[in-house]
């Protein structure tokens, strides 16, 4: 099954970021204030139903970008347009409306799920908070969510600590989907998983994009997975986007040195020709 998103020229971007700046203030031991510039004027565009991969080294500012876009941190300067609406500097009530539409999946499934809750409670929480569903409706939605992410229904009684890494990420995805978001930000969501499990979750993501029309912002340092999943790739270095374009082009004809270095560092598994054809 192939999902090829057509980026028509008339389509409105789902997310547009303009000159996003994030500064952290630090104080050195001597008492002089130091500033750490995590984001230095980031600009990017994501169209609905597509996947934009943001790749870069650790320290390039990828996670800060994710935090700002998910409204978990407020940027120092710049603007974020979501569905044509400026969301960077919204006050509390308005941002509460926007937040359910942008969900984040983090790298470490263990620390983003409450170990004392059962799966049932983890999934019910976002639904209960919305205050518009009855108990039966919630149960029904939980079943359909579990089915959608490929988890068996008898998992509801287990605690997240009893699940494997892949199962936990599926649970995190299910919880994010409960709010029917338009944009899913995946902050290194696959990096902590085993190789074979990464493939499974990647397939799940492709399937969900096809059936639900989800838009993904896929933040990773794994260029190979980005190559597999992304329509467009943006390369980040020291708080800036140094190159952005269609995935094919970036991988085959990189223009910037940073991109070339990233490509050079990808570990290759060279399979013998007979195996490739199978």
């Amino acid at each position, binding site marked *: 099954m192939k999902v090829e998103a057509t980026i028509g020229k008339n389509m409105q971007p789902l997310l547009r970021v303009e000159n996003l700046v994030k500064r952290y203030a630090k104080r050195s031991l001597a008492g002089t204030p130091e500033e750490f510039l995590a984001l230095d004027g980031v600009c990017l565009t994501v169209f609905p139903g597509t996947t934009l991969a943001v790749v870069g080294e*650790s320290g390039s500012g990828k996670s800060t970008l994710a935090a700002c876009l998910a409204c978990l941190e407020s940027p120092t300067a710049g603007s974020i347009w979501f569905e044509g609406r400026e969301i960077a500097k919204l006050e509390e009530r308005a941002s509460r409306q926007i937040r359910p539409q942008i969900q984040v999946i983090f790298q470490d499934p263990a620390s983003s799920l409450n170990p004392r809750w059962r799966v049932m409670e983890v999934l019910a929480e976002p639904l209960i908070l919305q205050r518009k569903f009855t108990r039966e409706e919630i149960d029904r939605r939980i079943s359909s969510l579990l089915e959608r992410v490929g988890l068996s229904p008898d998992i509801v009684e287990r605690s997240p600590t009893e699940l494997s890494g892949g199962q936990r990420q599926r649970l995190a995805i299910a919880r994010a989907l409960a709010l029917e978001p338009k944009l899913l930000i995946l902050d290194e969501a696959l990096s902590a998983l085993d190789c*074979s499990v990464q493939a499974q979750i990647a397939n799940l993501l492709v399937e969900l994009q096809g059936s639900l029309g989800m838009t993904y912002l896929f933040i990773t340092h794994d260029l190979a997975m980005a190559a*597999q999943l992304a329509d467009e790739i943006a390369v980040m270095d020291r708080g800036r986007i140094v190159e952005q374009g269609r995935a094919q082009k970036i991988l085959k004809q990189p223009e910037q040195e940073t991109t070339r270095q990233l490509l050079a560092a990808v570990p290759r598994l060279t399979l013998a020709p007979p195996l490739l054809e199978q």
Partner: protein
Amino acid sequence: MKAILEIQDLHVSYRSSGSGLCPALTGVSFGLMPGEIMGVLGESGSGKSTLAGSLVRLLPANARITRGAVQFEGTDLLRANADELRQIRSRRISLIFQEPSLALHPTMRVGEQVRQVLAAHDSLGKSALNEQTRQVFDQVFPEEADRISHSYPHQLSGGQRQRVLIAQAIACGPSVVIADEPTASLDPTTQMEILGVFRNLREKLGLAMIFITHNPALLCGFADRVLVLYAGKVAECGPAETVLASPRHPYTKALFHSIPTVFDRPENTRKTKLPAILGDSARSLPIRGCPFEPRCAGKMDICKEREPAAVNLSASHTVSCFKYES
């Protein structure tokens, strides 16, 4: 040439409350030659960390080594007493833990942590210890060795912390280093750097290494031999070029297929589904027969009844699969 470390028929289980003994490793045997890098490929639940821990007898309290022997320099490590073990650890065999941020003491300077390892094995004077610590740091940190040595772990980056762990491991000049997922939490460029550090040390010090990872691509061009672990058993073991380029065991083949590639990519395969292995290793372990059978694409009737024995495909390549039993 004789193997420097010989693992013979290792069986390790965990005692869990209520469900008796859970096997973690079953019948694992292999040999490590001096100066050789053996890559152990295993995913979660394969028993790789148990393997690493068993070699230096550093297992959780509920682990039971039920059978087997680990021969090292004339001693069976599984039967050594606490004193002998303490002498061997780090001085003859080193273990590099996963998660450098957790494996370092949070409030002790990293230079001191390396010095402690030296002090535990050599009764040298203070200045001699400091000198040796500096030498070890110079080997692992080509620049800024001094500044880093005075830093605390939380002031260092992931890659730097990993190098500190490596420094601790080589400080006393061991002949074998076991690295358990040393590049797991690092980004690709740092991963390459760390692999470079290991290669360097292998050349300069003639170390033999057991490099445990779940990412086969890391072993390309790095490991000499590759051992594939699945559900606590050895699925395949052979020279790196052979195993990585043309794997024989169905699990190894399926695993390599499910990994996306950047280069040599056939056209129009973007955003298609990867040929992932279905099912979950931890949950689908059959009671008898081949452990990979439930997820195997080429399973046969015999796979459900008996466990496959190791078949010699060549002098140095073994595979445990009924397909190759003739």
